[in-house]
């Protein structure tokens, strides 16, 4: 027990804390500036100076630890004088342009001076001058205002671990600069903006457009760009978002954001948003009223249902929409249209991967806290770059590395380059050779754990490739793989993070080998989740074969119980999966499709084929916030609200249900469930919902998973898997070992979609802010690849596929791509890399496995 006396008050502590923490826990206020919770201690601003008995000098409360019997004073004359002096020093070079500075009203220096500072300054010399820097598209630097607290640098180094900025110069000419010079050329997380206490580093998005006291309302809601589910605050005035800010410590992100979350909110206010329904008349989309549009959809759908029945419909939901939207959609399809043809883009990776791992290890096996990654002693990453797909989760991998964990990256992960202890990346298409070699090496170093006979039996059946074969196929040496096995020999607390490339490259065989590696490592599983509500799509039954809650609908006892409880019928035969639907559309077996919040003709592989198929539909309804490539083909386009305009719930990749809170009323768009309920009502099947809460309550009746989670519980830990229930983790050890689905050809160059840190799917392209960071796609390739096809960095190139499609764009030569692939983001209008790839369907899961056919790249003049 440590007893400290602060201002004659005794305070006791179990463990040593800083004087500042001690004082604050006792309600004693000590002003600080360079101190920031969670950042490395600094002790530079000298505002928190206090007197400690027996120590000759004043001490900084933020750095000095209390010791037993310590006597501290925080309000003596000497301290008050010192504080005044420090504030006077801070102001001598500070421009005092508060009337013009955006920070005014929420500036820590302003507040401190108001409370502790002198009435007037005595500095009669000229202040230092430093021009404001507008070199960067979204961050403006005003170093005259900088107080050199280095909070931004410590954030960048110690938390974001991007090490993009530093203090340059010295003395009173110390300025914060990006290493890259004018433009930041960094990860644009903007976490430096969060911690800047003054107006030195600020966002240009809302420059001079608001004052802190203009904010009418602050709405705490979720970011809608990926499956991490970061919390943030939207500051509102007159139904307009002034800015998105985090609050330190808040949400699972604890106040950290990435570029998309912090700057991408401007898509909500984009002038390209759809504001009115559109109906195709004489071949052209024309603005019509909601009544006309919904009436037309109801009429057409009724007609097709009467004539042909429910199996003639295809329904595509979206992991960008809420549970409430998706739940109501599946109810509409099952009850009103009597169809189970419901699926979504998560068929590509998230859904089959989760189903596969749950089949082996048990339900909920992927439900693990993101914060657990940072506490791991080893992290294995395969199939994607977590720092790009789920950036805030990626920080946990970096944190683990900072804590000394071994980080093994088995895929192209540029964001982990400085953090990985080994990075064996196999040639594209040969990953299974790497996985099996690694599995074998791990069994050699760690042994088989003996927990499951069935998986060990299957491991015993593996035909191990020999060393020569491995080297020949993967391009890796035996020693590369032995090094990984050595790194992973001893760790006890391992996280394995799995991204989408694993499925598209290697199908179930890849998943099996990774599952076996997970088994040998006794590791936690994390599935990267590109969109905010992938888990929710599964949980709300937006799958052709499962009911809300995940039970298979073909088991009649489940289905009947559900129908009884919910009062609506469900067809007894499972529907078509996503890619089966497109095949059926192509054959004319499906007549009408409803696409809710996705852009399949751009986002799915063999996009050209999908486009061709869809053009043959009798009737296509697309509900979206923007006129996407798919919407342009529609007969009816229904404008939708985006996440900031909605109430409802998302389920993140750790299976935590979180609430969205409506920050603004959509201008023209409606929420998905409102539109669906409207159509359903017109078709004679009324749905009585007044709010997202009503739907949530219905979902909790429909889903045994969510059964015990009330709307109020959503703000608490009860909304975290297993939702007050018992975890069901006893695995069924159902191991499906599939045949190779597609033939991997050649050792040539393959094209893949690149996942960008600054963009997310095909709708972040509508964000001017994100476009100002990156407005154009590029084809990124390793210098060796570039050399072999005689391409230089910045060349304009044409990439042509065997199917006749081609794209034109600029090349970027960078060793961040470690294999022989060319990666192109599938984001920007006019450059649909998905047109260049073809797939085969993995029969067990309906997931697409890519055919890797060689591409041709040539320079364009």
């Amino acid at each position, binding site marked *: 027990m440590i007893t400290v006396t602060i201002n004659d008050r005794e305070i006791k502590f179990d463990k040593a804390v800083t004087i500042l923490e001690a004082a604050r826990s006792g309600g004693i206020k000590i002003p600080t500036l360079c101190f920031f919770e969670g950042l490395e*201690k600094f*002790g530079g601003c*000298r*505002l928190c100076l206090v007197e400690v008995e027996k120590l000759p000098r004043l001490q900084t409360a933020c750095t000095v630890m209390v010791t037993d019997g310590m006597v501290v004073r925080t309000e003596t004359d000497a301290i008050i004088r010192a504080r005044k002096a420090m504030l006077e020093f801070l102001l001598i070079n500070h421009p005092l342009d508060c009337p013009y500075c955006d920070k005014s009203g929420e500036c820590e220096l302003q507040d401190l001076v108001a409370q502790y500072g002198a009435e007037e300054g005595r500095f009669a010399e000229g202040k230092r001058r430093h021009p404001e820097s507008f070199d960067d598209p979204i961050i403006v630097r005003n170093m005259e205002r900088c107080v050199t607290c280095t909070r931004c640098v410590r954030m960048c180094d110690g938390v974001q671990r991007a090490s993009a900025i*530093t*203090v340059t110069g010295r*003395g009173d000419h110390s300025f914060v600069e990006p290493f890259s010079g004018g433009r930041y050329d960094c990860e644009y997380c903007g976490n430096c903006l969060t911690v800047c206490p003054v107006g030195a580093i600020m966002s240009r998005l809302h420059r001079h457009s608001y004052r802190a006291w203009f904010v009418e309302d602050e709405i705490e809601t979720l970011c809608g760009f990926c499956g991490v589910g970061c919390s943030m605050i939207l500051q509102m005035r007159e139904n307009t978002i002034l800015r998105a800010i985090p609050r330190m410590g808040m949400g699972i992100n604890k106040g950290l954001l990435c570029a998309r979350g912090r700057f991408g909110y401007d898509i909500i206010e984009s002038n390209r948003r759809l504001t009115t329904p559109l109906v195709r008349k004489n071949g052209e989309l024309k603005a019509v009223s909601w009544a006309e549009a919904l009436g037309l959809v109801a009429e057409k759908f009724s007609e097709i249902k009467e004539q042909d029945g429910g199996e003639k419909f295809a329904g595509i939901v979206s992991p960008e929409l809420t549970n409430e939207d998706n739940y109501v959609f599946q109810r509409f399809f099952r009850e009103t249209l009597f169809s189970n043809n419901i699926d979504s883009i998560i068929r590509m990776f998230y859904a089959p991967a989760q189903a596969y791992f749950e089949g082996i290890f048990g339900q909920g096996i992927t439900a693990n806290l993101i914060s657990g990654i940072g506490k791991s002693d080893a992290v294995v990453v395969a199939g994607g770059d977590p720092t790009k797909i789920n950036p805030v989760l990626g920080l946990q991998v970096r944190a683990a590395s900072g804590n000394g964990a071994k980080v093994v990256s088995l895929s192209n992960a540029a964001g982990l380059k400085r953090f990985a202890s080994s990075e064996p990346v196999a040639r594209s298409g040969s990953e299974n050779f790497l996985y099996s070699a690694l599995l074998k090496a791990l069994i050699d170093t760690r042994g088989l754990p003996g927990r499951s006979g069935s998986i060990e039996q299957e491991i015993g059946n593996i035909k191990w490739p020999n060393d020569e074969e491995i080297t020949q196929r993967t391009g890796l040496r035996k020693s590369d793989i032995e090094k990984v096995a050595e790194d992973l020999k001893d760790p006890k607390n391992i996280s394995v993070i799995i991204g989408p490339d694993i499925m598209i490259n290697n199908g179930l065989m890849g998943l099996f080998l990774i599952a076996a590696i997970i088994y040998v490592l006794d590791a936690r599983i994390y599935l990267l989740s590109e969109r905010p509500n992938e888990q929710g799509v599964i949980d709300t039954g937006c799958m052709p074969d499962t009911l809300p809650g995940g039970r298979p609908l073909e088991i009649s006892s489940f289905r009947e119980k559900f129908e009884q409880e919910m009062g609506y019928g469900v067809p007894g035969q499972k529907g078509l999966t996503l890619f089966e639907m497109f095949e059926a559309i192509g054959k004319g077996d499906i007549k009408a499709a409803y696409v809710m919040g996705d852009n399949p003709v751009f986002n799915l592989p063999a996009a050209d084929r999908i486009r061709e198929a869809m053009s043959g539909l009798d009737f296509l309804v697309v509900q979206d916030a923007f006129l996407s490539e798919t919407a342009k083909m529609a007969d009816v386009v229904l404008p939708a609200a985006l996440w900031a305009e909605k109430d409802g719930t998302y389920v993140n990749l750790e299976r935590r249900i979180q609430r969205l809170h409506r920050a603004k009323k959509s201008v023209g768009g409606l929420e998905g469930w409102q539109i669906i309920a409207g159509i359903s009502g017109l078709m004679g099947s009324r749905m009585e919902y007044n709010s997202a809460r009503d739907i949530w309550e219905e979902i909790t009746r429909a889903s045994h998973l969510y059964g015990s989670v009330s709307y109020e519980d959503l703000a608490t830990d009860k909304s975290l898997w297993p939702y007050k229930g018992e975890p069901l983790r006893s695995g069924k050890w159902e191991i499906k070992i599939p045949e190779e689905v597609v033939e991997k050809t050649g050792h040539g160059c393959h094209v893949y979609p690149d996942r960008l840190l600054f963009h997310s799917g095909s709708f972040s392209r509508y964000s001017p802010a994100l476009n100002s960071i990156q407005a154009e796609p590029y084809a990124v390739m390793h210098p060796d690849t570039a050399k072999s096809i005689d391409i230089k960095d910045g060349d304009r190139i044409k990439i042509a596929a065997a199917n006749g499609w081609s794209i034109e764009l600029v090349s970027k030569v960078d060793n961040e791509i470690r294999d022989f692939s060319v990666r192109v983001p599938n984001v920007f209008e006019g450059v649909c890399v998905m047109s260049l790839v073809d797939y085969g369907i993995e029969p067990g899961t309906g997931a697409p496995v890519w055919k890797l056919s060689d591409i041709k790249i040539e320079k364009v003049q």
Partner: protein
Amino acid sequence: MQKFLLKNVDNPRSTDIREYRKSGGYKGLKKAVEMEPGKIVDEVKKSGLRGRGGAGFPTGMKWDFASRDPNFPKYLICNADEGEPGTFKDRHILERDPHLLIEGMVIAARALKVGRGYIYLRAEYPAAEVILDKAIDQAYKEGLLGENITGKGFKFDLSVHRGAGAYICGEETALIESIEGKRGQPRLKPPFPVNVGAWGKPTIVNNVETFSNLPLIIEIGPEEYSKIGNPDCPGPKLYCVSGFVEKPGVYELPMGTILRDIIYKHCGGIKGGGKLKAVIPGGISTPILPPDKIDCQMDFVNLPKAGSMLGSGAVMVFDESVCLVSVCMRAMQFFEHESCGKCTPCREGTGWLSNILERIENGMGRNGDIELLLEVASNISGKTFCPLGDGAAGMLLSFIKYFSDEFDHHIENRKCMVN
């Protein structure tokens, strides 16, 4: 008196290991390798040696802390970032007797069980780098550095690390940051480098002159050694005298030599028979003394009693022809330029002070400027992260304390009283 530290410097071939050996070099090391490491630490403790870098911390005590730390590897760093204005004593050893330093460092490595050492050399000493590199080469060839030193099976590697021109890197934690490749700024203490230093490992940082005392201590034993100079802080001391004396230079004298004797006896008095106006006894960051204070002993114990500090032993002598306002301004400009920018009072305060001093020097002083100087200086003093700010404030406060009439004259008459 007999010279120990500078006995070789007048030999034109003193940097050669053979010459060094001829004068008894590496005898201390030979003796040290026969001793238990702990015994060497004890001897250094007994000798009473205090660090020659400026702070005067007892070397034996520092070593004791370091040798008690159970963590390995440990690092040994020689602070050769001799940046204190007026100081050029270490340079003498670095350029003219590098083996004395190397021998001292190998003895320290032996005592502290260190396998790797660095000489952090001031960027502005390029010649010393060449000389040191060559001497280190020679020492490796002769088995005095490397794997199996003197055949006794202990290992010590040594190399030169050049600084990049920052005064603050003479502060040991900033120096360590710099060696690690980071921006040279002092670290929070505790933990102290002896426990958490370079790359988080126990690190012992000593000055060139400190290391150079070690062969002597080992060779003649701590009892004999402590008979040299002031018994409270014994040993030979290098004083570097500059300014208005007849014979400026580096003088090896017993610690505690009277300041007046240094100026008048050893350096031949004030240049051209002029009159002494003031002395800075220990480098620019030590308080200036007026002529009536120069009868004190130049050591860590007695100079503070006279109102100043020994610092690096850099004696700067000013005669009546010198404008002290100008000296003060120039010194403050130095501190402003060298402030690392980490803490508020030093970063902003030194700039402010030099602004005011420039104004006064240029005949633009205002009434109240002296009071403002005093107040700003006292707002820096005792509140900075590291001693650099204290040094700047202390220097200024001493100038005004003894020579306020000069400042007054500048402000009132808008010109200097000397010229």
